[in-house]
């Protein structure tokens, strides 16, 4: 019996057929524990986003199983997938993906409209998160008028709204300066440790990657190293 909240078993994903076939993810087996924040690094095109999409229930793997909290999500039908995305996963996309005509706060509250949750409690949660991520000042600003960094933080807050067990983050800090970036990552980490969730964060930023509990490196669709402490990877790359 492990404490793994996410188990990947021989997960592969290829796109296209014949000559045009791209093996984006190849035979990945990996466990992530409760309360663990993992950063996922690797060159562009190495399959990081594809892996995240599969774990987030947006893409069906070509082969393998993805078990979240004991449930194999690759067996889910359409409705179960929708509920899985709604209740179990908080996704922060590479683009910040706001609803442009809603305010920062409304963008958080939108997740309450999809059902299955107490909306009164969500209002509380929204204000708490806005405060925590330094967004209180812009809470009633329409999101199309927010800066890139503000939008990214709203996206992170939105992912945390429904208390998901799994938080998936694709390039969260791209438009944040390093100080703000660290602050955001620390806030995320606190959530994950405090509420025993798990998180995979894809990043190109070494200093961000370093702040995670574990660092996973992807090369060409495969796991290059899976249990490295952030420092070891850095020193191996430095060589």
């Amino acid at each position, binding site marked *: 019996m492990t404490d793994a909240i996410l188990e990947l078993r021989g997960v592969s994903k290829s796109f296209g057929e014949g000559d045009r076939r791209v093996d984006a993810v190849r035979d990945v087996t990996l466990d992530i524990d409760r309360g663990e924040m993992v950063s996922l690094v690797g060159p562009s095109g190495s399959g990081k986003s594809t892996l*995240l999409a599969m774990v987030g229930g*947006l893409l069906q793997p070509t082969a393998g199983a993805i078990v979240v909290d004991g449930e194999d999500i690759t067996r889910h039908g359409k409705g179960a997938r*929708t509920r899985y995305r709604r209740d179990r996963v908080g996704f922060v*996309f590479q683009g910040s*993906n706001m*609803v442009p005509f*809603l305010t920062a706060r409304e963008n958080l509250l939108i997740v309450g409209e*999809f059902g299955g949750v107490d909306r009164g409690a969500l209002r509380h949660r929204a204000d708490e998160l806005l405060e925590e991520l330094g967004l209180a000042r812009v809470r009633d600003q329409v999101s199309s008028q927010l800066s890139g960094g503000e939008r990214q933080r709203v996206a992170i807050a939105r992912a945390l709204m429904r208390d998901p067990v799994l938080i998936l983050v694709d390039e969260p800090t791209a438009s944040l300066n390093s100080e703000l970036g660290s602050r955001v990552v620390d806030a995320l980490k606190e959530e994950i440790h405090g509420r025993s969730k798990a998180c995979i964060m894809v990043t190109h930023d070494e200093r961000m990657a370093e702040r995670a509990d574990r660092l996973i490196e992807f090369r060409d669709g495969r796991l290059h190293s899976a249990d490295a402490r952030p420092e070891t990877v850095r020193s191996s790359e430095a060589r």
Partner: protein
Amino acid sequence: MLAIREMRRRKLQFALVTGVVALVSFLIIMVTGLGLGLYQRAGTALLSLNGDQLAYADNANLSLIRSRLTEAQVRDIEAKSGADDATPLGYIAAVIEYAPGRRDTAAVVGLVPGSFAEPRTIEGRALSSPDQILVDRSWARLAGTRVGDVLPLPVGFDRRNFTVAGIVDQGYFFFQPAVYVSLEAWQAIAYQGDASQRPAASVVLLKGKTLDASRGSGWEAVTKRTAFDNIEGVQAQQSTVNALRYMGLLIGAMVIGVFFYVITLQKVSLLGILKAIGASGFYLVTQGLLQVAVVSAVGALLAVGLAVLLQTTVLASSSVPIAFTTSAVLTTALSVLVAGMIGAGLSVRQVAAIDPIIAMQQQ
């Protein structure tokens, strides 16, 4: 609610399409009103005659203008039709100069005073002498005629004065406001020359749902309904009006449909993101349909308001043949709503088919 928030934040877009829907609905309501108005003008007076069937000369092809019955034929109809009751009617269109230099055409109906064909008056008295006349409210309004006034009707190259005995409320006859005189007076107005050569009546009004015979020597009887439908132009008119209505509904459905289709296309990436964070296809479709319902309901309501406004101001005092009934207006508003839903239903599949993976491809 996302749907309502979006409409509030994108007021201009939604206001524009609501305006267009309102105008299209208004057009449909007007066309419907015109249809009803023309229908009423065609011959409400005929439909409200206190009888069930009409006997025509059989060579008249059910034309009130061409039908002429002799005294013998009228007696034959009375005897052979087996109707509960029968009374002759005459029809002629006549120009009445009701004030110096002011003239208008009226449908002059000849009838036997005191017979069941004589309409009840809403003002004044029934006909009691051959130089009296009953006028319909539509004529009274047009010409400003009151009980006791004198109206000159053309008789040959001459004129004869008729005193208005009463006012009735039977509507138009044959697209003209109706006036009623005695059968003899009608004969004089309709046919000059030798009195013995004149036709006795245009048609005979019969009482009784079923007849022993609906044909005889030189005549045929039909129901009031058939008689009405055979008034020259009625059918063509009604089918034209109906074609216009359906056209309008089609345009309304297309306007709403295309608008929401374009809006949906614009929002594909946004809808993908919402799906990616847990919105079901059902939720998104419901939100879309809610917007359609609001746009078409508000549009239809504005149109109804506009129609009511028009009726109480301009139409009330004009001779434009547009008539509204509450049920016709409501039916139209409802049809617009349904048409809009159908039009927008085209986008439903589009929404359902959006793959949430596009959320990953946004920059």
